[in-house]
């Protein structure tokens, strides 16, 4: 019985895996073969890089790539700073209304970013940041998820280490920098990976606050590119899609283990 069940599970997992992999496999097929093979399967079809060249020439992907890198780096590094400081305060200090404030942070976890889209848009306009990269980052920097996950990790650091560091002559920020952060490195890596993949894939908010190639990110650029004229071929779109997703896929393959651990362990302790 358990043996059979296990077989069903394994077969099911493979089927689902293949189902999810199928579009990617098709995209690779379409991207590396001439246009006439985009809906025809022939194992001996000639290989070509023409589609990549074509896509690269049709839209400023290099600019999009640079914008995305700036956006993702800016967001994730700002999140590290803001969340680490907030989490440290919640984990180790007593201050008035601490629990109320932490409750508000938790409530933020329940609110989908799209719900506050219009308010965020108004704020960005008020700040005069429309169509800039910081405008894409700003709403995500005080991440409730980041604060929560880091607070949970910081709470597992033994208090005696604070005492030892105080006696060694460390001030509060030095304790955070030399004791808490190094001891929480796996959480930072896991959270960073989640954050990077989320922001790399982020679409709606960047679409709304950007309207020029100077600030557009890859995902938005790709969508604009594939919508522009009805005449764009699947082969070109596939090549462009592969270019857009490649960095993330490579990063996933490298950090696979941390990535999966981050989803299975964060916040449970």
């Amino acid at each position, binding site marked *: 019985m358990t043996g059979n069940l296990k077989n069903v599970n394994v077969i099911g997992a493979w089927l689902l895996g293949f189902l999810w992999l199928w579009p990617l496999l098709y995209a690779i097929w379409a991207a590396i073969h001439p246009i006439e093979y985009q809906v025809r399967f022939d194992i001996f079809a000639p290989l070509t890089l023409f589609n990549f060249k074509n896509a690269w020439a049709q839209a400023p992907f290099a600019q999009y790539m640079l914008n995305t890198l700036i956006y993702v780096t800016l967001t994730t590094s700002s999140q590290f700073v803001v969340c680490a400081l907030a989490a440290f305060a919640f984990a180790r200090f007593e201050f008035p209304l601490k629990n109320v404030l932490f409750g508000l942070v938790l409530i933020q976890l329940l609110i989908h970013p799209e719900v506050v889209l219009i308010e965020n848009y108004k704020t960005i306009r008020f700040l005069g940041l429309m169509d800039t990269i910081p405008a894409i980052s700003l709403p995500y920097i005080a991440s409730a998820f980041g604060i929560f996950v880091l607070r949970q990790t910081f709470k597992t650091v*033994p208090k*005696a*280490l604070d*005492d*030892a*560091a*105080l*006696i*060694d*002559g*460390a001030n509060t920020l*030095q304790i955070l920098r*030399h*004791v808490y952060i*190094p*001891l929480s*490195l796996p959480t930072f890596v896991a959270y960073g990976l989640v954050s990077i993949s989320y922001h790399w894939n982020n679409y709606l908010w960047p679409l709304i606050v950007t309207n020029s190639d100077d600030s557009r990110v890859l995902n938005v650029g790709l969508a604009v590119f594939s919508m522009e004229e009805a005449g764009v071929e699947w082969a070109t779109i596939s090549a462009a899609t592969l270019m857009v997703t490649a960095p993330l896929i490579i990063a996933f393959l490298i950090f696979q283990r941390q990535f999966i651990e981050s989803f299975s362990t964060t916040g449970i302790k």
Partner: protein
Amino acid sequence: MSAISIKKLNKFYDSNHVIRDASIEIESNSFTVLVGPSGCGKSTILRMIAGLEEVDSGTISIDGNVVNSLHPKERGIAMVFQSYALYPHMTVFDNIGFGLRLEGQSKHEIEAGVSEAARILKIEDLLDRKPRQLSGGQRQRVAIGRAITRKPKVFLFDEPLSNLDAALRVQMRVELAKLHDQLTATMLYVTHDQTEAMTMADRIVVLDKGEVSQAGAPLELYNSPKNSFVASFIGSPTMNFLNARAVAVTKGSVTIKLLDDLELKIANGDTAVSVGDELTLGVRPENLSLVQTPKAHCTGKVSVVEQLGSQTFLYLETVDGPLILEADGSTKIKVGDLAPISFDVKRCHLFNKHHQKI
């Protein structure tokens, strides 16, 4: 001059008054042990000296300067924790050198400081390891090494040996005593283990419920305890206590009567005792002896025999109450025997109903 001077120290946790008017003087270069049962406030006092706990009232001075509001690093102290509190992500070298690094010392100075400490503690070959690769005894050495490099005026030890096994504890006790001689620094050591206190201290401070019960040299506390708490806390096995009543008081002695009408004349300098007072007789196991029946003060039935080799402890049931007696290692007495007992009346203690020695 005192290295540490504590005056009228008080500490509250919410409404719990955990340190009550404690005043303690600690001599320069002494090895002083703060001892007491768990919850007596000994660690709290240590943490207040270190600057890890706020002082509610009273003053703490180190080398003549009041340090109440100074940051721990400005107090000239170093501390060794019960849990060692080594930084798990740093090597032994970095653990020992962390304080120097924070002081902004050069790489060269840090290296010199760390190797000096490593040499004293014989841990030179462990410097590249992480704390998790060390045994308990090695971790403790690293923790002590971290304290040494700061060259403090005062070393504070918070039950540093209680996580070690018995054999290692005895060994570390000896090494700490040697270290004290080697460094000629003031050491203040907290423990609940009276054996550690007796063997290591120049001076012991006994704490009871947040108050200083008695302070003095180890043998002074052992031989002349001021009250029944100190009498029972210092010494192992513990002192025997029997209920008694004063039946005759003369200048220099009190005659007491125990439950079985046994009368003992105890030398006593104090005369604040009147006939009829309820008293407690305290006598240490080694001041009771097995004698020939005619000389015995009373007899007791042996319930347990503990043979330690050089001596034997007999647990006796008498009409006056249970007694522990230290006999010779070669005694042949068995469980169930009736043992004739004699009291060394010169070395008996009397306590009044307020537990104070009279």
